[in-house]
C-alpha cells in the first residue's frame, strides 16, 4: 500500500524525545475533533438552544421577534390538562410496554440459551422486528388489527368468540392494542442484551447447584439472576427511556386517537410544534419530559451502583 508510506511520512512526529508526549496528545485531539465538532454544533448546541427556547414565545412563521417570557410556558403547561393526560398515557405506555417486554424477552433469552432444536430459527426471527422500519411495523399491525380484513378478528370469528372489534378505534382497546405492538417491536434488543448477559453466567456454578439438588427456579434465582442483574437493569432503564420517547409506531397506528387515548407526549409535542407552530411551548414540554426521564435515570443509576459494581 503506497498510501501507508505517504501518510507515515506526512505525519511522522519530530524525532525529539521530549516533544513526543505532546505530539501524541495533539494526536488525540486530532482524532477526536472530527466527531466532536459535529456533536457540539448539531447535538449539544441544539439541545441547549432547545432548553432556552422553552423560555420564549417562539412560533413558526412569525414576523415579530421572539421574546423572552420567563417561566410562562411552564406555568401554562402546569394547567394544561391535555398535556398531563398525554403525560399519564405516556407513563402507562412506557411501563406497560417495558415490563412485558422484559419478562417475555427474559423467557425467550432463557430458551435460546438452552440446547434446543430450531434455536437458530428463533434467533433469526427474534431479530426481525429490530430490522424492520418502525413505520412498517405500524403498517403491519394495522393489517393484523383491521376489523374486516385483519387476521386477528378472523381468528376470533373462527374460534367462535364473537365478531371481534375495531381494535385501534375502540376507546378501551386502542391503548392495549398499541402496547402489544410496542412489546413486539422492542423484544429483540432486550432479548439480545439478556442473552449476552446469560452467556456470561458461570456454567460451573449452575452445574454445581444442580448437583446439589437445586430446582430450576432456585438455580435461576441464586445463580443466573445475580449475574444477569446489571444487564437487566441497564436494558430496562434504556427501554423505559426509549419507550417514553417513542413516536413512529403510534403515529402510524392511531395518530394518537381515538380521542387522544393513545396520544403519547412525543405526539403531543410534535403536533404542538409542527402543526400549531408553538415552538416555545413544545420545547417546554420537551424539558418536562427530560426532567422526568432524568429522575428515572437517576433512580436507575443509584440502583446500578448498589447492585453491580463489576460492570
Amino acid at each position: 500500500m503506497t498510501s501507508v508510506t505517504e501518510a507515515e511520512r506526512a505525519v511522522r512526529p519530530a524525532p525529539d524525545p521530549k516533544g513526543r508526549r505532546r505530539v501524541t496528545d495533539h494526536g488525540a485531539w486530532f482524532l477526536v475533533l472530527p466527531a466532536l465538532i459535529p456533536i457540539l454544533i448539531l447535538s449539544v448546541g441544539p439541545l441547549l438552544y432547545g432548553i432556552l427556547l422553552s423560555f420564549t414565545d417562539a412560533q413558526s412563521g412569525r414576523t415579530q421577534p421572539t421574546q423572552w417570557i420567563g417561566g410562562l410556558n411552564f406555568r401554562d403547561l402546569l394547567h394544561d390538562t391535555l398535556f398531563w393526560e398525554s403525560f399519564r398515557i405516556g407513563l402507562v405506555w412506557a411501563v406497560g410496554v417495558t415490563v412485558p417486554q422484559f419478562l417475555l424477552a427474559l423467557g425467550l433469552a432463557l430458551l435460546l440459551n438452552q440446547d434446543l432444536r430450531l434455536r437458530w430459527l428463533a434467533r433469526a426471527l427474534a431479530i426481525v422486528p429490530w430490522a424492520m422500519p418502525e413505520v412498517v411495523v405500524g403498517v403491519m399491525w394495522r393489517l393484523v388489527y383491521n376489523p374486516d380484513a385483519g387476521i386477528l378478528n378472523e381468528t376470533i370469528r373462527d374460534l367462535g368468540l364473537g365478531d371481534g372489534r375495531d381494535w385501534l378505534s375502540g376507546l378501551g382497546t386502542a391503548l392495549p392494542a398499541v402496547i402489544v405492538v410496542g412489546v413486539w417491536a422492542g423484544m429483540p434488543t432486550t432479548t439480545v442484551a439478556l442473552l449476552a448477559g446469560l452467556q456470561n453466567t458461570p456454567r460451573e456454578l449452575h452445574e454445581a447447584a444442580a448437583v446439589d439438588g437445586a430446582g430450576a427456579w432456585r438455580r435461576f434465582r441464586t445463580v443466573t439472576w445475580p449475574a444477569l442483574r446489571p444487564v437487566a437493569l441497564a436494558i430496562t432503564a434504556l427501554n423505559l427511556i426509549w419507550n417514553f420517547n417513542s413516536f413512529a409506531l403510534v403515529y402510524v397506528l392511531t395518530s394518537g386517537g381515538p380521542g387522544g387515548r393513545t396520544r403519547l407526549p412525543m405526539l403531543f409535542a410534535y403536533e404542538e410544534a409542527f402543526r400549531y407552530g408553538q415552538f416555545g411551548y413544545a420545547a417546554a414540554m420537551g424539558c418536562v419530559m427530560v426532567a422526568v426521564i432524568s429522575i428515572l435515570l437517576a433512580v436507575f443509576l443509584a440502583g446500578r451502583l448498589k447492585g453491580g459494581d463489576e460492570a
Partner: protein
Amino acid sequence: MRTSRTGRAGQYLALLAYLLFLALPFLWLISTAFKPPRELGSLHPTWIPKDPTLANFRQAFDEQPLLHAALNSLIAALGAALIAVLLATPMAYVMARRRTPLARAATGWVVVSQAFPLVLLIIPLFLVLKNLRLINSVPGLIMVYVVWALPFALWMLVGYVRAVPPELEEAAAVDGAGRVRTLVSVTAPLLAPGIVATALFAFVTAWNEFFFALVLLKTPEKQTLPVVLTHFIGAEGVADLGPLAAAAFLATLPSLVVFAVIQRRITGGMLTGAVKS
C-alpha cells in the same frame, strides 16, 4: 444439565409460541401484499392468498413515487453511515485506549443523549437548518442522521477497539513501527469487520428512520421511504391495504438483508460494549 422430558416438551411449546408471536404478523403482511382487492374486501380473509397477484406492487409504484423515495432513502442512509463511521472511528479509538477526561465526557454524552426526547432536539435543528436553507433537502437530513447515529456508532466501535489487544500495538511499536504505521497496518485490519458492521447498522437505522424525515422533508420528491409509506394511509385512517402492504414489504427487504449479514457481529458488538464499559 439434564432436563426432564416434560420440561423439554414445555420448552419446545414455549419456543413455538414465541416463534408464532414473532413471525405471524410479518407473514400476514406478506400474505396481504399478494392478495387481489376482492380477497382484501372479503370478510373471511385467509392466510394463503387464493389468487396471488402482483397487482398490488404495480399499483403501489403507480400511486406513490416509491423508486424516487427509495433513492432518497439510499442516499441519506449511505451518506449518514459513511460519514458517521468516518468521524466516529478515530474518536472511539481514543475513548477506548485512553482515560482522558474528554473520553469520559464523551461516554457520558453517549448515555445522556439517549435520554433527550427528540422533540427538544428537532425544534432547534429545524430553526438552524431553515436558516442554512437545508430544510427539505437530503443533505440536511444526512447532517442530522450523522449526529444522531454517532452515539451508538461510538458505543459499538469502542467495544470493537477494546477487543483489539493493545499488546499487538505495543509489539509493533517495539518492532519500530511509528504510530500511524501501527494504526494502519495492525489496528485497522483487525478493526475492519467491526467498522463494517457499525456502518451497516447505521445504514439500517437511517434507512428505517421516520421522525426527522417527517419533520424535515416537506415535498414528496425529497421524502424518504418511511414518510412516503404513510401517504398510503388517508386522512381518515382509511388505507388501500394491498398497495400499502406491498410497499411496506419492499421497504423492509434491504433492512432485513443487511441485518441478516451483520446479525452475529451486532450482538457481539453490543455484548462487548455493554460488558466492558
